[in-house]
């Protein structure tokens, strides 16, 4: 065999170089490709743009318009957009709709952020413990999540509102609990698969503590699917908060919540439908941008779902 190496011709060496160059390119490709997908992914791009626009309006709007969302002006009620200096018009008490929209977006985002961070942290901890530790811990985690998972979110929220009274707290708790269950399920499923992988076995065999394995080896691997999932649950949280505020259980007046604003405008659809349509578009835009981002993230991070023609040619 050594004969081959000694007698390598210039042809063979040139060929080796070409293959090496190609392989280098392929090796560099996954990241380059992923990055390119990130920028080229239409869903992600549209979603981010829409998201930035809405969040920007919510955050920056009040800096210029002031944040007097409760200021009434009974002479200027039910104004349509672009009248008397009110960019989006006014509501039944003559409150500036644009200012209320901005604050409403802030409320939506804050509630969604609170819910999602609770759900993400608790869900990841529960899912990782259940999936990795197994045994009775897993049994408890599974029965609790299976139990919660089947329940409709709105019903849980109404129940808690029945106990705690109306306001944003029961909304955050209820949606949080249901989303925790959702994230726990997925993280647990991932971890159960990861647990049998060589790198985990190896770490365990060399005496690394459970906590360290979870923190150093499992967490980075479940992060991507958990984040993709979380982006969907941001949308769920926004819709739930808006819906509950709409029926009067969420944000209490005069704090503007997008859902509550839609409800307030309801009685004046014929008179000035903008009072309902504007916050409605706000909610739909927020949710649409979050779900587009979620779809895009899934495409980038979870190629399994994207390659529908998998397992094609092997031989």
């Amino acid at each position: 065999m050594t004969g081959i190496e000694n007698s390598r011709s210039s042809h063979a060496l040139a060929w080796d170089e070409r293959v090496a160059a190609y392989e280098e390119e392929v090796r560099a490709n996954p990241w380059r490709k992923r990055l390119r997908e990130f920028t080229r992914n239409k869903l992600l791009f549209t979603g981010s743009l829409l998201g930035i626009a809405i969040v920007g309006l919510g955050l920056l709007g009040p800096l210029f318009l002031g944040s007097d969302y409760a200021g009434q002006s009974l002479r200027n009620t039910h104004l349509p957009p672009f009248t008397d200096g009110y960019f989006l018009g006014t509501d039944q008490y003559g409150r500036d709709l644009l200012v209320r929209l901005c604050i409403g977006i802030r409320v939506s985002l804050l509630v969604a952020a609170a819910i999602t961070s609770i759900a993400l942290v608790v869900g990841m901890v529960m899912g990782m413990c259940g999936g990795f530790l197994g045994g009775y811990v897993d049994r408890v985690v599974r029965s609790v999540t299976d139990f919660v998972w089947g329940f409709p979110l709105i019903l849980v929220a109404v129940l808690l509102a029945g106990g705690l009274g109306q306001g944003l707290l029961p909304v955050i708790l209820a949606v949080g609990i249901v989303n925790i269950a959702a994230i726990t399920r997925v993280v647990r499923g991932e971890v159960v698969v990861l647990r049998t992988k060589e790198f985990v076995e190896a770490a365990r065999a060399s005496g690394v503590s459970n906590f360290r394995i979870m923190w150093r080896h499992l967490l980075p691997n479940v992060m991507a699917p958990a984040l993709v999932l979380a982006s969907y649950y941001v949308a769920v949280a926004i819709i739930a908060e808006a819906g509950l505020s709409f029926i009067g259980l969420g944000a209490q007046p005069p704090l503007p919540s997008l859902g509550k604003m839609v409800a307030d405008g309801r009685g004046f659809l014929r008179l000035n439908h903008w009072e309902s349509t504007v916050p409605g578009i706000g909610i739909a835009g927020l949710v649409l941008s979050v779900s587009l981002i979620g779809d895009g993230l899934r495409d980038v991070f979870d190629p399994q779902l994207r390659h529908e023609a998998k397992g094609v040619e092997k031989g």
Partner: protein
Amino acid sequence: MKHTASRLVYTVIVLFVSSVAVFYAIRLSGGDATAAALPGSATEEFREEFRDRLGLNEPIYQQYFTYMGRILSGDPGNSLTNNKALTTMLSEHGRNSLILGGTAFGLVFLVGVPLGIVASLRRNSWADQGIMSMSTVAMAVPNFWLALLAVWLFASRLGWLPSAGCCGPKHLILPAVVLAFEGIALTVRMTRSSMIESQNSDYVRTLRAGGLSEWRITCKHVLRNALIPIISLAGLRIGQIVGYALIVETIFGWPGLGQVLVNAVLRRDYPVAQFFSLVLVALVVVGNWVADTGYTIANPRLRKSS
């Protein structure tokens, strides 16, 4: 069989645990229960006597058993606000809710599954892309806002349908469609991906090699396999419809269980809130069990094990 039996035991346990959870959740507010029934001017002694009469001063676990005993014996009590018997309210409003929820549940599958199948068969065509973008948008539109748009368009503008009320077929259309909307969108996506997965599977290749026609393979084998995951999530769809019914019934003034429950919570009419929460929770749990049984029937791998 073993699977079905163990699910039944599980369902009973879930029913028990959730009844406890509902009972405690509603009682979180403690003594506030008197606020709804009694005028603000009522004296403290009078309130105390009222609590005594309702058994609110007993230990809470005892209250739970007394309460469940009364429910099981068919006398869950009366509303605090209008003193109506809860059983009467259940039969009145329950019927309405079943009509609305049943229609929506039917729509979810009768509309969602065919659309998903069309999208999967014409993959990447304009029809597929149209259906998929519609479903993305449909999932982003909150149903209460959709309800308002629908009322504005079909009731106020066009005058084709009533904006609210009960209980004729014309009154049913708008709330049922709104209630089913998100479920349809989810079912479309699920059907499509499940069909595509099934189309790409090895057994379909085997059937093609056996010379069966594409049409036959799709209608019989692909569809049958693709339906299994869809049926397995029917339980979630039931839960979703029950949840959204609270909002949609309120908007359309459809006198069902959801509307009654929301009003009871807003008015702190806790016997009503408690009882109807229990009813809805039980409905969800039992619905899940039924869906699970359907899943077992559809999936031979669970039906009998050898």
